[in-house]
């Protein structure tokens, strides 16, 4: 009766002196591989978002999670006055990146997307802009 208990404890205690097999998240960080599709970022060039608001990403998005509204800047050029991604709907397929004709959007290595309220999952243009 007591023997299985001792045997079990033996395994437990032996593991206390071995190297852990799992990744010690969050103290240890995973090594994110190339091609990983995490949170989106809007690319910047010349201090401006590269996005020209062509609406191809909301058109191709299968989850319908991207909202774009175009605006006209002082030079009469088109820019995204509003660019929002509803991360609760996003399925991280990466079609938006594929569709983009001007390399304005990419997917970063950031995977920690937990949040406390629904509103926090709406990523506005400000939050998506590439941070330098």
């Amino acid at each position, binding site marked *: 009766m007591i023997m299985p208990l001792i045997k079990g404890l033996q395994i437990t205690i032996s593991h206390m002196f071995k190297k852990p097999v799992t990744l010690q998240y969050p103290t240890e960080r995973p090594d994110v591989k190339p091609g990983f599709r995490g949170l989106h970022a809007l690319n910047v060039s010349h201090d401006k978002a590269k996005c020209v*608001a062509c*609406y191809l990403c909301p058109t191709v998005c299968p989850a319908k999670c991207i909202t774009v509204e175009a605006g006209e800047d002082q030079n*009469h050029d088109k820019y995204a006055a509003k660019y929002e991604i509803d991360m609760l709907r996003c399925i991280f397929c990466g079609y938006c990146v594929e569709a983009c*004709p001007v390399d304005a959007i990419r997917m970063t290595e950031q995977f920690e997307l937990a949040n406390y309220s629904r509103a926090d999952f709406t990523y506005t243009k400000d939050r998506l802009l590439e941070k330098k």
Partner: protein
Amino acid sequence: MVNLTIDGKQVAVEKDATIYDAAKACGIKIPILCHDKKLHPFGGCRMCLVEVEQMKGRLIPACTTPVTEGMIVQTTTDEIVKARKLVLELLLLKHPIDCPVCDAAGDCDLQNLTYEYKVNMNRFVDEKFNHEIDYENPLIERDMNRCIHCGKCARICDEIVSYGAYTFINRGIEAKMGTEFDGPLNCEFCGSCVSVCPVGALNSRPFKFKARWWALQKTKSVCSYCGTGCQLTLGSKDGKVLTTIYDENQGFHNGQLCTRGRFGYQFVNSDKRLTAPLVRKNGKLQEATWEEALAEVTSRLSAGKSDPASVAALATPRLTNEELFLFEKLFRGTVGTDNIDHSAGYAHEALTKGAVASFGVAASPAEIADVQKSNLLLVVKSDAYETHPVIGFEINLGVKRKGIALRIVSDKKGKLTRLPGAKTTVHAPGNEVALFNALCKSVIDQGLAAEGVAGLDALKAAVADASAEKAGVTAEEVAAIAKEFASAEKALIILPIGQGYPGHNAALANAAANLAILTGQYGKEGAGLLIMGEKNNSQGAVDMGIYPKGTGLNAAAIIDGCANGNVKTLFVAGENPVVSYPNRKKVEKALENVEFMVVSDLFLTETAAMADVVLPACSFAEKSGTFTSLGRRVQNVRKAIPAIGLAKSDFEILNALSQALGGARYNNQGEVFTEIAASVPAYKGLTQAGLKDEGAVYPVTLSAKLVPAAAKAAVQAPGKLALVTGSALYHCGTMSRFGEGPMYVCPDAYAELNVADAAALKIAEGDQVTVTSGTGAVKVAAKVGKRVPQGVVFSPYHFGEGSVNTITDGSEVTYVTVAKQ
């Protein structure tokens, strides 16, 4: 018929068809960039090259080559595809690849063909154009870098609009589509050029960057401005109407629109729209619930049932047939009052009294299709173009393509007078009836009158003393028009009516009808009298009986009744009497005096601001139903977007009131149409589903009779100018003020003077002037030109600020003095 073979298919077509037409007829698509079915063949783009067995050795353009008997045509061979690819490569050499930011993407012929022909590389290299882009124009943005030189804009502007704003300038690689001295665009802003542009060289600026073409929900509907009844396609997204989409297969006009139709849609989603009912509390209009607002209206109307004469109702002919029918049923039936009217009363009399007396029907004997089938058009007032621009395009086409003779009798010149071969007889203002009487007399004197016409003797006696001089024109002019009109195979009189034209009343309709009947020019194709109602459903309002039929008060009498206290409750559905009825002060006083006034409207108009209860109504884009256009065509209006805010359609409002007052209740507007079809004789047998996209013209049975029309004696007003009112090209009624497009190009009230008068009064273009009549005075901007003759001032009536009805009193002509401030 000519027989030919295209891609192995046998086809028989008319002998004036081209290979392109023949291919289209048998369902074979030949790619085109510069061809448009409305325009003359151009043969510029070389996309439509085909191979003809009998003309081997070279490729033949399908759009310019007429068919011949026994022709054998191949539309897609390797050689043809290679040639087409080359054409696309050469076009893409200069065309910027900015599809992501170009609004035409998705609806771009060049983009579609590039995709279809898989042109993904270019053998040639060259620099792109670097033309300056016109961002200044508020309606049409011109980016000539994207232009592919198809010439459609220049051709449509010349052939159909007859304006000629564009032309090719320079030669060779330098060639570009330019404007007058390559300056800014200064035209009618109808946007026809934008509609036909196969690429994004011409764009609608109000729609710029608003949405991509493929994201728009497209709803086929009918324009809600003038009575022409142009069909249009509304492009909407997220509950907003964002643009009108060109569809060359829509309506008699082939998708052609005027500036109001194309650029005047913004009123639908205007910030100024009413979104909640308002009820007057402590002297101020305050937001209220629908229950509260409707309860108040119901209690007033049910109190009015015991004294129906104290209740009056005015409706706008912008409502659908279903709403107007319900309106009539509610007030004439349930409440029991005959005090119902529309369009200030006088603006529909040409139909309800004039046409009824002369032809026995309250509708035009002619329809729109007759314009192009005629041999001679006699247009009353050059303003016919301004009131109904798309009918104006039909006249342009008829005159320029079919050689129809155009005669205009008008108190001023206008665009129509510049058409080739057009002859204009400018008469003294207010003398239309006298002129038509003189024409009738001339017909009789020249022995051209048809025999055995009912009422001929009475007419002979009535016009015995009519003369050209009395109308202020020469006897030769009158004799010539009379002769031409009588001897033409088919002659049509075009008569615009509306609130801007108090003189276009029953008498004028009778006088014009007399000429048509006297010469036998009626009851056949291409002949008769086309009375052009002002608003989108003017004809429907007449058909639904929105006018006093018995002893009831007409609009003018209702206003008087409000002033003297006989009318205690006034229901106004969409009308804006303060701005559009004559004598603004009198109207304002009357409406202040009336005990209880309820207004249902889209906006807090000048009239709504005086009401006790204001009900927010829906625009045409938010409801379904039918409109009847001026050619008696009943057409489907379809809902494109949900109602704005808490607004309800007039159908819902009237239905709720009708039910609360113990009247009829309908489940939906379709049920009302079924009842209309059962109870209005002209609409017998019609169903909304049966109207389909093209609508249906209801038939009329004419019983023509000559009805003498008394001409008013000429007024002598020495030292004064004759003020005539009317419609500006960019506006219709008072609603177009809420559309951004029309307001960009015509924002303020103006008075148009002749150069000689202006010089004498030391007035320059743009000066602020005071126009004073016996009724009042108004300050407006001056416009100086040669369009109006000396001694005449013209002013449009649409505007709230400086509204011309401050100085008019409902007579044909108002005599005024004009002074610089």
